[in-house]
């Protein structure tokens, strides 16, 4: 568990994705929906990795929409990158596009509400 803190976890199968979501119960999860052919995804990837390091209390997952089509469809991902913020299985926020500042301000917002309600 501790070994996975601070890094972005790439999920390559539906089972891996489900397992990571189950393990993250109670924590803020941010899923980066990405594609190998999406230029904006390549621009934001290092920023997402940096935030994973900066906010070890949250879980950072990466889903390739070509690899995990069902997951992308389940969350109705149409544009890339899309960042979904999930807490206790519920979608609490969403950022569409490589919006660096918003990506971070949403993490801060939802981590704070988490500790306040704990």
């Amino acid at each position, binding site marked *: 568990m501790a070994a996975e803190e601070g890094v972005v976890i790439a999920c390559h199968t539906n089972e891996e994705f489900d397992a990571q979501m189950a393990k993250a119960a109670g924590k803020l999860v941010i899923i980066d929906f990405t*594609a190998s*052919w*999406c*230029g*904006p*995804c*390549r*621009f*934001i990837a290092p920023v997402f990795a940096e935030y994973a390091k900066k906010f070890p209390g949250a879980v950072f997952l990466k889903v390739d929409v070509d690899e995990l089509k069902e997951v992308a469809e389940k969350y109705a991902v*149409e*544009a*890339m*990158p899309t960042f979904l913020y999930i807490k206790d299985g519920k979608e609490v926020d969403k950022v*569409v*596009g*490589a*919006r660096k*500042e*918003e990506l971070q*301000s949403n993490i801060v917002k939802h981590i704070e509400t988490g500790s306040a309600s704990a």
Partner: protein
Amino acid sequence: MASSGFEGFEKRLELVFTHAVVGGGGLQHGLRLLPVEALREALDAVQCAVVSAAGNAVFDAYVLSESSLFLYPSRVILKTCGTTRLLRAVPVLLRAAGELGLCLRSCRYSRGSYLFPEAQPFPHADFADEVRYLDGAVPGELRFRRSAVMPSRGSHRWHVYSASTSDGGDAPQPTVIEVCMTELDRTLAAQFYQRPGDARTSHAIGDEMTAASGIGGVNPRSLVCAYAFAPCGYSMNGLDGARYATVHVTPEDGHSYASYECAGDADSDSDAGALASIRRAVAAFRPAVVSVSVCYTGAVLLLPNTTDAASSVWAAVARALEPLGLACQSEAADDLPGAGTVTYQTFTAAACSDRHENP
């Protein structure tokens, strides 16, 4: 007028590529596979940077510190304002595309008349220099070349350059509409200033400007990526399937400027929709002066009572803008080998003309 102010008028470059070798890998995604470093190098040469970006299944759209960049698998559209050195991107993009196995098929460059021409760096201050630069930068295979300066009744001109490997007969290209607006309504322009002390992100403030100005309603189906600059100014890209739209605003009084650009889908229904969208975009700014340039291949939409495609486009544009109290002052058209036909029209608020009184 002050000799220093922000130059709103953009320079616009469109490069269309073809696959050098058929059957290689990565053909499907083409230019979308350009490495981040190559894009940065091109934008550094131009002197601008990416501030926001998003892609859909068809293309990638970047909001830049100075306007926008769109990347389709075989097409790049780079539009930059201010004193950027847009044409410096050409050699960088050609080299990077070459590394992906793509070679240039056509090049089109266009711009209006600058508000502050003396502030422009070489070769942008003089259209003749820009043409010489482009002629030197594009490969010799693009042997069908033409440049034109299209007149209006006033001092505004529309500058176009085109180079192509063929003089037409290729698959129809998407129709592109470029709208340039000056002397914006002051109250409407004021919406593009940030409130002092606003702690929200540039994206969030941009989203609010999109909604408040009515720009979000120009194409309600599109995904909008908006960005608000400090202390003022706004940029947005809209993505709707294969179609893009983009709006840029520099609201400073005395040299206020806004632009709207959109592309159709190379079919006449979407061209008609794109032409109709001009009205909603221009209504967000109520400018005193507007120019509209449409570049199309083939017969876009032939309206009743018009004899040729250019008259049809002029009529459709006029019909979109006249209900806003804008009166057409001039019409021009020019044929560019490989790039189709370019029309250029200018409009002024009817209240400014002697013939009409705005009710």
